[in-house]
């Protein structure tokens, strides 16, 4: 019995060593990474782990943990998985290091557009892009003879047609869960209507004609969505799609893969991805561009940073992308965009192109204010004008407290 166990243990440890061969070097320094928990991160951290001595923590609460963990000295993690939304507190607190020398040493395989530069210095290595774009049921659209929607008006017209046909009661899905998700819809819609959030002196500028137009466009969705739309987040909308409850939604590109997951989707191969709809003719698609990538902590030794970066490069290599082509819209060499990536690519290459998510201190405060004040408008407690005033007041209070307004 004992012998058997020993033999088994030996076999497993052998398997472990053969797995290392997938990595170009044998890592001897301990490397810890904290990142978000979605599929792409799992693929990358698994590839990194092949080098040995890598501890990956995949946690959806990463954005609350990261700033404090990187502020510690020595930092609790060597690497961080960030997005352009969550890198701001790290940049502001100066807890991540410039990567120019490391890129020069180990970054031969990186594409130029992966290098995220802030004031000329490389601060992060992007690995994938994400954006909210249009997904629709091609079969339903063809059957009813509806063209691919280009604007939000088209989307609502299509939704009306589907509802009329009696195929679905609530043909439109929307990530309007109050809080962050709902605020994000407004972050898409206001610039889409040509509006802006701030004046140059950090005072709010949402109370405008564009602001009203954006709110009205948002509210128009309620006619075609599930009545419980104010509790529906990305996962809920994804499930509505998979269960044939909805036919159109402006949803995250990272959710596209789930539409063709045979195990849980009833609509495999029926959902088509297209560019995010425009809020007005000739405008940019009403959405924002996001990237996810890797940063290296400042409060670690240079040797550790060296090892961590090398491990990261192994995680972001061609081999990993080829094995996980469908997991994300990779920026890494070797990625072959499939039909699921069409929507994101059409969105990103649109002319005029949608803006990147404007991640700044003031935008963080504005996002919270939007998330807290918009629900009252959608439930009908407040009209558009009063809502915009409430958003500005709520933002102003928070901005004064945070020290960016006097």
């Amino acid at each position, binding site marked *: 019995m004992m012998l058997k166990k020993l033999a088994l243990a030996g076999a497993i440890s052998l398997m472990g060593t053969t797995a290392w061969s997938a990595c170009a070097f044998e890592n001897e320094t301990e490397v810890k990474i904290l990142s978000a928990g979605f599929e792409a991160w799992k693929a990358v951290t698994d590839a990194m782990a092949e080098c040995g001595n890598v501890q990956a923590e995949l946690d959806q609460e990463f*954005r*609350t943990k990261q*700033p404090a963990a990187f502020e510690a000295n020595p930092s609790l993690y060597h690497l961080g998985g960030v997005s*352009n*939304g969550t890198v*701001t507190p790290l940049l*502001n*607190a*100066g*807890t991540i290091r410039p990567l120019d020398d490391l890129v020069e040493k180990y970054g031969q395989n990186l594409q*130029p*557009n*992966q290098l*995220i*530069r*802030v004031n*000329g210095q490389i601060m992060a290595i*992007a690995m994938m*892009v994400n954006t909210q774009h249009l997904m629709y049921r091609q079969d339903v659209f063809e059957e009813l003879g509806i063209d691919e929607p280009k604007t939000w008006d088209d989307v609502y017209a299509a939704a009306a047609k589907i509802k009329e046909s009696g195929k679905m*009661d609530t043909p439109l899905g929307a990530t309007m*869960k*109050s*809080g962050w998700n*709902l605020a994000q819809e407004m972050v898409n819609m206001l610039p889409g209507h040509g509006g802006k959030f701030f004046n*140059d002196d*950090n005072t709010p500028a949402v109370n405008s004609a564009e602001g009203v137009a954006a709110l009205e466009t948002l509210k128009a969705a309620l006619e075609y969505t599930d009545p*419980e739309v*104010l*509790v529906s987040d990305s996962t809920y909308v994804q499930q509505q799609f998979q269960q044939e409850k909805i036919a159109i939604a402006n949803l995250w590109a990272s959710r596209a893969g789930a539409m063709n997951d045979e195990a849980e989707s009833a609509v495999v191969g029926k959902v088509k991805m297209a560019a995010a709809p425009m809020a007005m003719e000739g405008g940019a698609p009403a959405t924002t561009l996001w*990237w996810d990538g890797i940063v290296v902590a*400042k409060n670690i030794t240079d040797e550790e940073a060296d090892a961590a970066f090398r491990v990261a490069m192994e995680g972001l290599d061609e081999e990993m992308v080829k094995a996980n082509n469908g997991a994300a*819209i990779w*920026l890494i060499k070797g990625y072959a965009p499939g039909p699921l990536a069409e929507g*994101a690519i059409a969105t*990103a*290459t649109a002319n005029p*192109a949608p803006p*990147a998510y*404007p*991640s*700044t*201190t*003031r*935008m*963080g*405060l504005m996002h*919270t204010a939007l998330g*807290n004040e918009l*629900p*009252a408008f*959608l*439930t009908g*407690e407040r009209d558009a004008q009063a809502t915009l005033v*409430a958003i500005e007041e709520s933002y102003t*209070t*928070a901005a004064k*407290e*945070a*020290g*960016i307004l006097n």
Partner: protein
Amino acid sequence: MKFKTFFAFVAPSLFMMILFIALPLVSVLIQSFQITQPVMTQSEVETCTPGFLTQTCTTELKTVPVLDENGKTITTTEWVGLQSYRNVLQMDKVWAAIGSNSWSEILQIDFWKALRFTLMYTLLTLPLVIGVGLLIALTVNNAAKSLRGPVIFISLLPFIITPVVGALSIYWLFVGDGILTALMEQWSGTNISMFAQAWTIELLMYFYRVWHVAPFAFVIFYAGLQTVNMDTLESAVIDGANRWERLRHVIIPHLMPLIIFIALIHLMDCYRVFEEIVGFRSEAYVISLQWLTYDFLTPDDAGNRAIARASASAMLTMIGIVFLLILPLRRTWRDHKGGAH
């Protein structure tokens, strides 16, 4: 007991209470009068974002914190008096709304919206919890001995379940086409959305809280029922008292201290209602005071948290609990003094 012995026994607990309750409370009190901000400066920042195949670089004026030579953010702390309380309470708007007689406007301010729900929730669930708890206790007490064990076990289950898990289970049973909503739809023939308006969400919350807390009241009452004086009960029967009169004049007076005890615990617990809000995702319709504090404390993507307002909101919550407890505590105090003579 000698004071020294008494002190030796109590000291560890006292020490822990001071360390983990009193000191943090003092610190929160202090922070509610202060605002700590990083020193900010405006600077031109060029940021590059990957598009597909190409990169777009934009230069904008960004407000960023200033770092000292050690790379730490420089912060300033100012005493601001009651400013954070004013920010939370927004009394100017309240007075304006009262002036124009529009109560609904008051309920659009987060704090008052939360207070309305929290108070109503606490006060309405209190009699329900006590009533249902007493009912289960009486039923079990009158049930056949062989049934008591299983019945007690089943009635205790909701209390054992972690609150967040309990709230989530109810959410999943009712959201969208959840099992119970689907059943109700089949039965009534109409389309029902339990999470599409405030009153149905609140109804589910009341149901959840009573379901979750009544077993606690039941256990306490059940223990109390075992000590009811049988002689008094028998003489009541001989005097011709019916079931209801026995309950009203013998059992309830006997259980009164326990009822007060449960009321105290329930008021304290329920005023801090939080799990329901998060579990039911009801933020768009219903929020509570404790959730408000949590919302202030949660950092946004840029790392900002409203610590000053969170402290003020926490202090206000505590003041609310103290007010609620005054009444039952005074009664206990009187009973205590009355019983001492």
